[in-house]
């Protein structure tokens, strides 16, 4: 990576060396199928179940409540579709927010086409769901509420506990997309009123292709992938056990370093936010400040210019950032999250997300603060909207 600066950790992270080391024996040596009745299978079963236990411990869950999937996206799809289909006789109404990840939103939209009704709760200018709005939106036929823990674009941390308590009181199931927060924020499912929770390893220095859905004991959910009897008959497909081992290792490391990491990264984050707002006129921070913001998320709107141009210039200097969610970067529409917090299309187009990670340093932040103002100046000089 040499002198490149990676500031797109919300899109994905590198596998940590310790994690890769833990995975390596499981490719060529311990490669069996855990469903098999022989030593090659048993040794893998042991590794899979030990990993499940580690992950459960990290989250305050029971091992049986952890189900492996291939991605956070699959976990979100499964939680929502699987629950909706298993419980549709109790009602066909689902509640979510307008700033969820597309894995949640597009699943909900598809369910609407299949006859479910979905309410998309608005958020305030910092991206918060108002618990009162949730309370009012719950109807007798509401079966499920899905609200993300932390937003992937603007870093807003939702009042999960409060929202979950409302759901519990009204006897509605509560799913939390914790893909951005797992490993970064503490999550204790022993105490949180949460029925399902998604997490994805590649966001916390684990491998891609592996994720998990926490499904609280007693929660009825149908499979979305049918086949062999893996995951207690609920999610078929040969276990990706090397990745499972890596996920457990990565989460364990993240949890053990969490406090220290959060402190360091919050300092860098605030340095970056303050620096940008100070050095570049006509900018605004998207999402809240302080401890209700993901410690590694910076998202600013830079008026009069379009985000991709900034990304390209940064990229030429070896700095990797994103404009809105990585998953929508190929799209032309401005981020649905930025529109939902009230930005105009024009301003939403000029957003820049810098998401920090373990290896980032103060020097790197300083370098960004040095080059970014010049890039912006350059692009603004070209903009018909900027009256310098």
């Amino acid at each position, binding site marked *: 990576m040499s002198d490149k600066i990676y500031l797109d950790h919300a899109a994905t992270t590198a596998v940590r060396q310790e994690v890769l080391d833990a995975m390596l024996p499981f490719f060529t040596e311990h490669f069996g199928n855990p469903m098999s009745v022989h030593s090659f299978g048993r040794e893998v079963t042991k590794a899979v179940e030990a990993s499940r236990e580690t992950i459960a411990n990290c989250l305050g869950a029971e091992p049986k409540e952890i189900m492996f999937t291939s991605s956070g996206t699959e976990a979100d799809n499964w939680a929502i579709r699987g629950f909706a289909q298993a419980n549709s006789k109790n009602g066909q109404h689902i509640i979510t927010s307008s700033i969820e990840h597309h894995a949640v939103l597009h699943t909900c939209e598809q369910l609407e086409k299949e006859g479910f009704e979905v309410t998309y709760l608005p958020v305030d200018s910092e991206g918060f769901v108002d618990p009162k709005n949730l309370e009012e939106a719950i109807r007798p036929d509401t079966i499920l509420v899905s609200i993300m823990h932390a937003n992937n674009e603007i870093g807003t941390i939702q009042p999960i506990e409060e929202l979950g308590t409302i759901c519990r009181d009204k006897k509605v199931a509560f799913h939390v997309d914790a893909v951005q927060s797992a490993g970064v924020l503490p999550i204790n499912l022993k105490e949180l009123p949460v029925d399902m929770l998604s997490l994805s390893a590649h966001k916390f220095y684990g491998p891609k292709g592996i994720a998990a859905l926490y499904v609280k004991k007693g929660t009825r959910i149908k499979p979305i992938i049918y086949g062999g009897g893996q995951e207690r008959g609920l999610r078929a497909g040969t276990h990706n056990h090397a990745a499972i081992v890596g996920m457990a290792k990565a989460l364990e490391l993240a949890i053990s370093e969490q406090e220290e990491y959060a402190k360091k990264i919050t300092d860098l984050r605030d340095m970056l936010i303050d620096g940008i707002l100070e050095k570049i006129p006509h900018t605004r921070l998207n999402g809240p400040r302080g401890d209700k913001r993901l410690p590694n998320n910076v998202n600013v709107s830079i008026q*009069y*210019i*379009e985000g*991709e*141009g900034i990304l*390209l*210039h940064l990229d*030429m200097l070896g700095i990797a950032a994103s404009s809105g969610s990585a998953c929508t970067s*190929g*799209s*032309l529409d*401005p981020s649905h999250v930025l529109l939902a917090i009230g930005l*105009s*299309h*024009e301003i939403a*187009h000029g957003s820049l997300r810098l998401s920090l990670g373990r290896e980032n340093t103060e020097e790197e932040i300083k370098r960004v603060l040095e080059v970014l103002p010049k890039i912006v100046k350059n692009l603004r*000089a*070209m*903009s*018909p*909207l900027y009256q310098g």
Partner: protein
Amino acid sequence: MEYTDKVMDHFMNPRNVGEIQNADGVGEQGNAKCGDIMKLYIKVEDDKIVDAKFKTFGCGAAIATSSIVTEMVKGKSLDEAMTISNKAVAEALGGLPPVKMHCSLLAADALHKAIIDYKVKNNLPVDKCDECDTCCHEDHIHEEEN
């Protein structure tokens, strides 16, 4: 999605950025809501475009197409310039990612509008340009968005 070297060159070192004071024709296309606005200025002498400048709010492709279109028109007669198509602009850049094709549409349209603007100001006959109402195209090619 990946830009060609030529696109990156025109994006990093855009030619003819700016405005022309007392331009003979000005064309504006797109709007900020869609994420791109292009403003194209031309100077005309003896039916020939002798200078062109642009200002663009938009993605890398929008800036690169703006830049190259100003190069392409210089020295061309108005009639020749009017025949510069979206396809030609994209080709001149060595191609654009499918998802970005609409940006080449924008550049040719702004050019055509600038020429029409000149003709109207100078009471010259104008052929209707049908293509000039592109914005937030319904046909954004989402299929190719990788």
